[in-house]
């Protein structure tokens, strides 16, 4: 079998072997329900408490402010719908951005159908939220600002501290979707004035199907999944103990290796960006040149289409993505690339490559060589390229 070069770590990551190792005893040995009286359940309860502590520490939060969910999407849905419900008497206006993940955007559309008004802030050409637009959007009835920490497609990191301060000054709750940022960049909920924060295990070498919502003490959010008294009565459902243990381990790991890992990733990312921009003509980098996730590179190659490119890369054992993996069920061009002002046909030819700690310079050399060849080939097949060449002759 060919070597696999997995460059789609923003879609999902490999679960780290030590994370799986940590989970295993909770399937067949300490399988007790943590909400029980007997000692078998005590083991599970202890494990959950430890995971909660690890995560709280990673954010500068308190242990009882971490609530486990089934992933980033549930956390986002919960944060928005259940604060909207709890603060209805205060107002019905929510501010978010045009480049959020669909878990936020589609939830906002749902809220619009249920009597809420949403402002979708524009971003600049680098994907950075326009702070002056945020300030203008605030009204007396604004109850929530939700801005993602870092974008999943183009990797741009938002000025979260500034946004948090603005929200705080106005007494408005601030939620951030940190699904891409948690474990990749340092986050402190107090320093950034974050009231709620979503994260998902499988983005940081943890298991799929587990995530959390940080909820600052005092925030009057309602339940989203009603039922049993788990998670201090705020999120029902028998606790996914192995998943929670795995998420705790993944967080511990990500925090311990963050500096070293991301330093290396930034170096390799920049190497990749430099080579691609220099060696492949009619190419642009999407997202901010420096204020971006350590592992994210996103290019648009003029005159070609993303899916064809992905399939050809796959034949060489290279996994990448074109827009967000979650939306590949849809054929619309990425709303994020539209929001940064790319024309339709250029957005179509985009490629996201997201690194992990195992990727080497040699891997990236292999990728660049193949990219050059494949893009040449696709362009030679492209009527758009033909028109362009004719026009510029």
């Amino acid at each position, binding site marked *: 079998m060919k070597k696999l070069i997995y460059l789609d770590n923003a879609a999902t990551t490999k679960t780290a072997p030590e994370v799986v190792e940590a989970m295993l005893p909770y399937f067949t040995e300490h399988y007790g329900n943590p909400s029980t*009286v007997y000692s078998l359940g*005590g083991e599970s309860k202890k494990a959950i408490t430890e995971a909660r502590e690890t995560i709280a520490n990673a954010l500068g939060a308190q242990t009882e402010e971490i609530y486990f969910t089934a992933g980033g999407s549930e956390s986002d849905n919960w944060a928005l719908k259940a604060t909207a419900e709890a603060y209805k008497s205060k107002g019905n206006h929510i501010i978010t951005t045009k480049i959020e993940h669909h878990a936020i955007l589609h939830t906002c559309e749902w809220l619009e159908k249920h009597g809420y008004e949403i402002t979708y802030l524009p971003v600049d050409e680098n994907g950075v939220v326009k702070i002056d637009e945020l300030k203008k959007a605030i009204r007396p009835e604004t109850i929530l600002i939700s801005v993602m920490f870092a974008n999943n497609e183009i990797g741009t990191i938002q000025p979260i501290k500034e946004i948090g301060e603005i929200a705080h000054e106005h007494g408005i709750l601030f939620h951030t979707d940190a699904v891409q940022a948690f474990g990749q960049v340092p986050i402190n909920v107090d320093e950034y004035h974050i009231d709620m924060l979503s994260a998902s295990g499988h983005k940081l070498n943890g298991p799929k199907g587990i995530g959390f919502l940080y909820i600052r003490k005092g925030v*009057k959010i*309602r*339940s989203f999944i009603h039922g049993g008294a788990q998670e*201090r*009565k*705020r999120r029902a459902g028998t606790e996914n103990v192995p998943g929670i243990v795995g998420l705790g381990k993944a967080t511990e790991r990500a925090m311990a290796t963050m500096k070293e890992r991301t330093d290396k990733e930034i170096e390799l990312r920049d190497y990749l960006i430099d080579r691609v921009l220099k060696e492949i003509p009619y190419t642009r980098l999407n997202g901010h040149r420096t204020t971006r996730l350590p592992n994210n590179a996103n290019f648009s190659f003029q005159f070609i289409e993303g899916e064809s490119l992905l399939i050809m890369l796959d034949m060489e054992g290279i996994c990448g993505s074109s827009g967000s993996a979650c939306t590949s069920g849809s054929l619309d061009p990425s709303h994020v690339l539209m929001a940064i002002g790319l024309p339709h046909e250029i957005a179509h030819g985009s490629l996201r490559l997201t690194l992990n700690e195992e990727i080497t310079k040699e891997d990236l050399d292999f990728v660049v060589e193949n990219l050059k060849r494949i893009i040449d080939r696709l362009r030679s097949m492209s009527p758009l390229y033909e028109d362009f060449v004719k026009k510029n002759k």
Partner: protein
Amino acid sequence: MYSEKVMDHFQHPRNVGEIENASGVGTVGNAKCGDIMRMYLDIDDNGVIQDCKFKTFGCGAAVATSSMATELVKGKTIQQALEVTNKAVMEALDGLPPVKVHCSLLAEEAIHAALWDYAEKHGIKIEGLKKPKSDIHEGEEEEGEDY
């Protein structure tokens, strides 16, 4: 879930049983959870509690607090016994989980009820002792939020 002390008093409860012709008997119920505790006191002519026994229909915390409460009042004067609060009992047990704080109130109330019974039988008034409620309502702090 419980401290070692709680488990010890649960497994080996001190002073379980009845006292025939006790000087005072008090039975209290906990409206919150439906549990019931009965305390028997044997008080000598000097107002010193010579013996104390209990019976409890309740959770692990209720059994352990009953047991600890009997230990704490034994040998005390009536006035000293009045100072055995639920807090004192909890501290002596190295604490209780938050949802179990109300169980310790049973013990405090049971002592008071037994003393009240003693006072009535002997036609005396005990300084600082109020007529016990048959039900205990107030108790642990609950998360007042509505989820």
